[in-house]
Structures are given as C-alpha cells and as structure tokens.
C-alpha cells in the first residue's frame, strides 16, 4: 500500500526524526528553565509560564502555545514543501508515476503523509510536555479560565482536544505547502515559501489596518483555543477553525490537483 510506504519512508527518515526530536525538546527546555529560575518573579514571561511551578500539567500546554507560531509551522513547512518537489528532485516522481501510482492517488497519499506529520509533531510536544511536567513539578487539579476546577484526567482529555485543534490548524498550511510543492522541483524553495507564508499570515493578522481580511487568514484562529479551557467546553472556535481550514484545504488542495494532473514531469 502506497500510504504505508509513504509513512514508513517519511518517519524513518533522519530529517523527520530530527525535527520531531527538536520539537520534543521544546517542553523539556521550558520545564528545565522554569525549574532552574524558580525564584518566582511572576508576571513576566508568556501566559501560563508562571503557572507551571504550581502544576506540571501546564508544561505541555505552554509548550504547545510556544510552538504554534514558529516551530510547528516550520517543521510542517519542511514536510509539506517536500511532498512533490522532493520526489521531483530525487527523480523518483517519474518512477512513482510510471509504476503507475496514479497522479491523484499520489497527491492524496502525499497530503495524508503531511497531515500525519502534523499529528505526530503536535503529539510529540504534548507527550513530551506531560512526561517532563509530571517529573519536575507537582500534578494537581487544574483551574480553568471559567473558574471551574477539573482533575488531571479531565485535563489530559483537554490536552488531547487542544492537540487536535492544533493539528486542524496546520492542515491549511499543509495544503498550501502541497500546492507550492507541485510548482517546483526545488524542495528547499517550496519549504521556504511555505514557512515564509506562515510568518506573513501571522504578521498580517497583527496589523490593525487589515482587520477586514484577518478572519480569512489561515493563521487567524491558530491561538483561538481558549474555549477548550472553559467549562462546559464551547465548540464554536473549533467549528470556525475547521471551516477556515477546510476552505484552505479545498482551495489549495484543488489548485494542487489541477496543477499536478496537468503537469509535465520533466525532472
């Protein structure tokens, strides 16, 4: 099965393992840094950071929040940008197509591979964060934004929901990367373009003059997961984000299909 082969190739690759390893270091670095400087001048640093000392469960949460703007889009950009362009640059694209893989099927498998990487990358941050948080800090009941208190087990479920939200957030970017990847046989170019677009989208999202277009930026709801930390959970932002990402997947996935089905493979 081509999908199994794709996943095997992707996750056995040293580059993929190195990126996942680097992501696993994010919560570890945060936890160690907080532990070492635990003198406790609260009020500084990103949100949630000072809460870590009271509850190790916040390590995973904080690490995810810290990874969303840069680390996750960067690694996803590498994988999504490499999908087609990487095969083209190895010359293996022509052999896959001659096998024959079918162009639509290959594109679908490649996108599924990129989506699997989004899931793996997010999971690595959460799992690594939960483990290191539990090792270095006390684990207690968690007070939510709504003031309610839930137990560690319930909070673990929230973390899974949050990870799902982040994976969802990255699907649009993956589709953009896939499309760019069909335009070139230089994978580094496609990777860089994808990563730059994720930065541009986030910058535009912060310019007040562009308020009119901001709801349509694919990164607009990347940090909009506060609803998952209320009791009861409000699914509005989940739904909005799903709709937004679906739009990007449809438009850029469609563009990738159109481009790839008609493309002359000359590399």
């Amino acid at each position: 099965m081509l999908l199994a082969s794709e996943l095997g190739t992707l996750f056995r690759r040293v580059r993929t393992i190195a990126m996942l390893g680097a992501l696993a270091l994010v919560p570890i670095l945060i936890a160690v840094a907080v532990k070492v400087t635990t003198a406790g001048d609260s009020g500084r640093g990103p949100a949630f950071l000072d809460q870590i000392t009271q509850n190790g469960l916040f390590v995973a949460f904080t690490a995810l929040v810290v990874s969303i703007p840069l680390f996750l889009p960067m690694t996803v950009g590498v994988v999504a940008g490499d999908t087609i362009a990487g095969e083209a640059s190895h010359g293996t694209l022509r052999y896959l197509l001659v096998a024959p893989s079918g162009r639509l099927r290959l594109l679908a498998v490649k996108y599924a591979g990129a989506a699997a990487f989004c899931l793996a990358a997010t999971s690595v941050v959460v799992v690594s964060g939960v483990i290191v948080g539990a090792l270095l800090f006390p684990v207690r009941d968690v007070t939510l934004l709504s003031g309610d208190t839930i137990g560690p087990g319930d909070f673990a479920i929230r973390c899974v929901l949050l990870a799902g939200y982040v994976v969802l957030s990255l699907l649009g970017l993956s589709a953009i990367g896939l499309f760019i990847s069909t335009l070139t046989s230089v994978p580094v170019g496609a990777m860089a373009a994808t990563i730059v677009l994720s930065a541009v989208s986030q910058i535009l999202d912060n310019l007040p003059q562009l308020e009119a277009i901001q709801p349509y930026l694919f990164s607009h709801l990347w940090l909009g997961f506060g609803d998952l930390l209320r009791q009861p959970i409000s699914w509005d932002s989940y739904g909005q984000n799903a709709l937004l990402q679906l739009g990007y997947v449809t438009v850029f996935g469609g563009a990738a299909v159109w481009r790839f089905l008609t493309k002359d493979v000359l590399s």
Partner: protein
Amino acid sequence: MPQLAIETHGLTKRFGAQLAVDGLDLAVPAGTVFGFLGPNGSGKTTTIRMLLGLASSTDGEIRMLEEAMPSAIESVLPRVGALVEGPAFYPFLSGRANLLRLDAADRRSPLGTRRARVDAALERVGLTAAARKRAHAYSLGMKQRLGLANALLAPRDLLILDEPTNGLDPQGTREVRAIIRSVADEGATVFVSSHLLSEIEQLCSHVAVMSRGRLVAQGTLQELRAQSIRRLVVLSPDPDAARRVLAGLGLAPSVRVCPDGGAELTAELPDPTMLAENATRALVEAGVRVRGIAVAGETLEERFVALTGEGFDVAG
C-alpha cells in the same frame, strides 16, 4: 499486419516556440527488440516521456499494448517496465527498500509476492549482495542495475529503456545486454533508446532514427542497410580515360589524385542491378589500366550520419 506494441501517429511536443518532437509516426512490432537511435537532444527522451504519460503531447495519438495512451494509463503501465532518463532513487533508503516502495506505488501489484519479486529482480541484475546498502552508496553502474531491476519487478509485456547502458563498464554493458536479450526471449517487446549505434546494432532487430525531433528512418536493420548507397571505387593511373568510360556508363565519378601518380575514382551506383563487372569490362575494352576495383557499401554508421547530419559517438 503484425501487432504493434507501440504505435504513434503525428506525435508532436512543443515547448514554447521549440518543436521537440515533430509529427512522429512510430510503429514498434510486438516481440521485437527495437532500437530508438538519435543524437543527444534529438527528442528521444521527450518521446519516451509522452509514451509513459509523464508529459502530455501537443498533438497526435499514442497506442501502447493495443490501448490508447494516456487514457488507459492505469491498465497499460503495470505491463510496462521503464527506465527513463537514468535511474533515480531515494538516497537514504537501501536498494531493496527503494524497490519495495516503487512496487507499492502500483496499486495492482500483489502484496503477497512483493518481497519475493523484489529479491528475484535484485538477483537478476546481480545486486543481491548490495541489496541492503543505501542507494546513496551505489556506484553509477549499480544504480543503473537497480533501475533495471525496478523495470523487471513484475512480468512485463513491454520494456522501455532509455540509454540502459549509460555509465556501465564493458562488463556491465555485456550483462545488461544479456538481461535485455533474456527478457526479449521471454516474449516481451523491448524498446531501447541510445545514442550509440554499436549498442543498437548488437541488440536490435528493428530501428528508428530520430534527428531534430523528426523520424528520419524506420525499419529492420537489414532494410536500413539495403537502403544504403553503394559505390564503385576504381584505382587507375589513367584517371581521365577511366572517367570517360564511367561517364559513358551513366556514372558521375569524383576523382581523387593519389600521391603515387594514380587516381581513385568513386561513383555512386544508382541502379543496384548494374554490376561492377560491367564497368570492369568497359574499362578493359577501352584500354584503361586498372589497379583495383571494388564496390563499397556504406557502413551503417555512414548511413546514420547521412540521415541525421550529425556524428555519432560510436565508442561502444
């Protein structure tokens, strides 16, 4: 009319203003080893890309294994093994893992026999010992063999091999030829492109010659040899008299004076029934002294140079 394994009509590919392939009418009979010959840049690889559905044609039709391409690509290509513009692999995977992946890309290839087929293909090209090495560490010759193994992963009705002996040492070249012959003996059609005439002469029964995007000749090697022009060569110390006699026979000899005072007269023989002995008798009857007389056939190489207007690299 024999069955055709590959058939194109007016196949054309245009890149911007440039015509890479111009109105190609290929007819590759089933069961033959067919040479696709032409200088570098004459449109061979572009043609192969169109045959395999990698590139679209600007115009014209393709039929492969009795089906229209590229519309029947999903049913035709599993029966076709191909080596296109050099072998290509994932450098970070072993030779064996590369073949497993490429085999998995074909939806119709049976999973149950995958490992056995991959091992058999590796064995056939002599790569069993290096199967677990990363492709990154393979020499060019080993990559070429691995590419060939990929083309032989399943029983094929047609092999399309683009320059299969590129980068191989003489021993490797011989082995590749042996593999191609064994595939042909099993009944498959083999379509081999090359810019090396010697390669094609040793392997093929049929040949098509490309030049600047056009097909300039097609047929059996024998037919091409028969088309070649025959020349009468006369060595004589009396060039003027000899030329008059030959002109009297309707020939138009060119004269080259040799350093020893004699001359070499060369004339094309337009009529294959006109025999050299007629010329000999006429020369003798006219009292022309003759040192030597011969009929020289054009070599196949000269024929191809004449057809393509370009030299071939004939160092096999």
